[in-house]
């Protein structure tokens, strides 16, 4: 049986919406470009631990609250 690599799901968009932040505003809070927030939100880029921690802190949640492994 072949084992497939687990995918990372995120709830960044939902958390961002809860705070009423645009991608650009969140980017400014964590010190990256808007494109970076966009690529993370759409799952095209898996952020480093450092960025994940910064995002979690900016959105007042935990890293596990933002990112989950898809079953």
């Amino acid at each position, binding site marked *: 049986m072949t084992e497939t690599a687990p995918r990372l799901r995120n709830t960044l968009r939902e958390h961002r919406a809860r705070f009423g932040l645009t991608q650009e505003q969140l980017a400014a809070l964590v010190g*990256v*470009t808007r*494109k970076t927030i*966009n690529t993370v939100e759409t799952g095209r*880029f898996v952020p480093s631990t450092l960025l994940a921690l910064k995002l979690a802190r900016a959105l007042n949640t935990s890293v596990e609250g933002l990112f989950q492994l898809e079953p």
Partner: protein
Amino acid sequence: MSDVERMDAARDRLIYLSLAGFLVWQAGDVARQVFDLLGAPRALRVAAIVVGLLGAVAWACGLVLLRRWMRRLRANPSLVMALEDEVVRDARLRAFAVGFFATIGALAVVTVVGAFFPFSARLAGQLSILVAVSVSLSALLHFRRRIEVD
């Protein structure tokens, strides 16, 4: 639009300008060398030189503007952090990898073709540099454009 977004967009425009200038400059110079090899009419060689010079001027303008862009960046440490974030570094790394393999491919082609149709080492080197720079910059723009697709 914030300073970060403005400078990010400006960087892309500068890369486009540098790439276009470099391609025209080198294409003109390579064309001149090929015309020399083929003994083409003088008018064609002069045209290739003029085209190459125009490209060189555009490339030089791109370099000057890029230096100004970098000076503005260095003046503001928070901009450095945002504009050199991990997605930007990832795109750059992947673009260099693509450029590296394209250069190896170009060198292989030049070596094989050179076995049948001998040409100068300068032309071979120039073609390799042309491929290395143009493919790396094109790949960088491609990866950065892909980032923008929502």
